């Protein structure tokens, strides 16, 4: 890659344009030098796609919470880009316990302690957690 080929395709989603990354490219004499790049179309497509997949799934889960099929824990887990295993290790539970807490009937009976743990991991208040989808 020559210095004049370093891509400058703006990354215009989720504040991605705030960062200009450094890349190594060769100048006219073939010598390597560092050049900042605004972004590259190929990378932007790949990153955007990953985010779109996240947003799509999150919207589906939000619907299910509203219909009473899933508890708000499932929604906030996805919103924080977590999987069951990761969330379980944050709240100090087994994976099967976390999965059980996805059931609205179980969620409604959770103790204040457990709810507080989840809320802390999601960086929200217990009220926000309980009231989502209502």
């Amino acid at each position: 890659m020559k210095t004049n080929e370093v891509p400058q395709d703006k990354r215009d989603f989720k504040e991605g344009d705030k960062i200009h990354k450094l890349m190594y490219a060769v100048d006219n004499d073939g010598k390597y030098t560092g050049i900042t790049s605004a972004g590259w179309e190929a990378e932007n497509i790949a990153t955007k796609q990953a985010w779109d997949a996240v947003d799509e799934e999150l919207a589906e889960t939000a619907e299910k919470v509203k219909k009473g099929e899933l508890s708000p824990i499932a929604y906030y887990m996805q919103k924080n880009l977590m999987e069951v295993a990761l969330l379980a290790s944050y709240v100090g539970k087994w994976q099967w316990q976390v999965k059980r807490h996805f059931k609205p009937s179980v969620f409604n009976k959770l103790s204040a302690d457990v709810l507080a743990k989840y809320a802390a991991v999601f960086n929200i208040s217990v009220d926000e957690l309980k009231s989502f989808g209502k």
Partner: protein
Amino acid sequence: MSTVLYKHYQHAHCESGVTANLLRHEGINISEPMAFGIGAGIFFAHLPFVKVSGTPGTTFRTWPGAIFKRTTQRLGIEMHTERFRSPERANQALDSVIATGKPVGMLSSVYYLPYLPEAFRFHFNAHNLVVYGKENGRYLVSDPILEDVATIAPEDLAKARFAKGTPEPRGFMYYVKSVPQHIDYTKAIQAGIKQTCFFMLSPPLPWFGNKAIFLLSKQIKKYPQKLTPRKASLYLGNVVRMQEEIGTGGAGFRFLYAAFLQEAGTMLKRDDLQGFSAELTKIGDDWRNFAYHAARLMKDRKSDLVSFDELSDLLRVCGEKERDLFGRIQKIKW
């Protein structure tokens, strides 16, 4: 608490960048490519059975911590490394070291670094950064991928340093203890190059090193039959993201390694290394071309521009050229 005179340099990759920044602070004039090369940072692995967020794991670099460890060992620099059980003790230890004027490197999760744009914040736990001081209750951060320095609140830094998942940073921090009078770059460069060739060419398993490039190439050929268009697109996207992750110019660290070979060639006055550098730059362009076409195919899902077969061939050619190149580099008479 005082702030030491610390100079921040932007780098392409976090680990080689932090290594270079910490060593420069001690007066060792080392570039990022040099740290990356001596630390044998370039690698390839494709693990179809290890799913990372539902897509097969692909990496273009060696495992976290290895670049830093190898580079400092090979240059004879004594480092202090430490992990912690609790965030409180980790913060105390950090405060006492920066109070003495030492910048401290550490592992963190990018998800919990509020100074990064949301677009980059996934649960990736092996991001390296430097803390070089504390002012008005906030840590002063030199993140090598940023153009400028940043600050972070102690509670956010604690979250980032004690993130869960794989790997767990467990507050891992490191700083330079002592620097030798004389540094032998020649030996360090040779050791780095030898190790890189070994890791690229020798693993007898299909998932690691050069062999894994051919494995991925074969897998890509099968994507249209094996996967739904959505899955195929996500899998390809992941390869491109790993290839491009933090400033590699789409070449999966080939340009960074080529820059190292060039600098090493100049330092050791060897034309053969210069030649290898130029060749690797061309191969890097091939990788870039592969990433570009993969992204197009991904976007259109049923693109006619280039089919999965052609894409697989582009990758296979990269693998063949590299097998030949690293084979010749391995045979260098030092």
